[in-house]
């Protein structure tokens, strides 16, 4: 019989068990998503509507310009690096960013995100996890600068 339909131990075909664990994972993911997106989305809207974002980002304008990003995008970088990419997306969504700016953010944060959580996993692989975490930040921002020069 084809392995797709094989039931050697009577537990049913592998896809059924896989679907079962996908449902469990999926449900957990939905809860995680709501808990991560909603607070950061609200926070981002509140910060920009209250004018607090404009105030803080005034200081950052020259720095963020390096990546072709508006100063408000600093909050996206902070949310992505310290929390996770979903929080970063929630913060970025209300800002009106061009496709180039979203790509630069996606690239920087793709390399350098969830730094604290993921350092725990990296530590299981190598004792040099601190250096590697620093490498992610430097590499993300450095290569992001080059990408911004290319596409912005």
């Amino acid at each position, binding site marked *: 019989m084809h392995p797709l339909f094989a039931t050697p131990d009577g537990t049913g075909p592998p896809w059924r068990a*896989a679907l079962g664990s996908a449902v469990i*994972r999926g449900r957990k*993911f939905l809860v995680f998503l709501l808990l991560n997106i909603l607070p950061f989305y609200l926070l981002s809207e*509140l910060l920009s509507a209250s004018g607090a974002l404009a105030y803080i980002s005034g200081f950052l304008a020259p720095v963020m310009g390096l990546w072709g990003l508006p100063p408000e995008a600093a909050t996206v970088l902070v949310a992505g690096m310290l929390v996770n990419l979903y929080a970063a997306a929630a913060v970025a969504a209300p800002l009106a960013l061009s496709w180039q700016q979203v790509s630069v953010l996606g690239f920087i944060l793709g390399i350098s995100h969830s730094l604290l959580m993921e350092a725990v996993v990296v530590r299981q692989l190598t004792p040099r996890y601190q250096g590697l975490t620093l490498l992610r930040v430097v590499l993300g921002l450095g290569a992001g600068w080059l990408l911004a020069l290319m596409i912005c």
Partner: protein
Amino acid sequence: MLGKLVGMLPGAMGGGLILCAEIAAVVLPLIIGYEMAKAYGVFERPWPRLRPLLAWLGLGPGALVPLLAGVFLGLLYGAGVLVSASREQGLAAGERLALAVFLVTCHAVVEDTAIFVLLGGSAFWILVPRLVLALGLTAWLARRGRRRMQT
């Protein structure tokens, strides 16, 4: 001022929920796909054709399973496969470092890219430079390691 901020809450809530729904529509099928691939042992297949590529990166054949788990599942979701496989396969310290360097630069490629594509980013510019960086950095590390062993 406060009234204005409270007044915008429902709209912001709606915007947040729409974003949640969009991400869920992309990631939930991915989760089903990952679980199916795992159940049919895709991440445990040896794929001998990839051996030269692995060697170029300073990795032995035993590093393939944790590498695939990290690249497709991500560090957190794939942590179980990643850590247990790298232990079972008895990877040397240098190999583990090479694996970690590659994976911190480039992991969860489908999901991470999809999030920013949803916001309007370019999949090419988000993914390809990241992949090139991870390959280049790991290969450079491997070459440097070999040179050190010779001297």
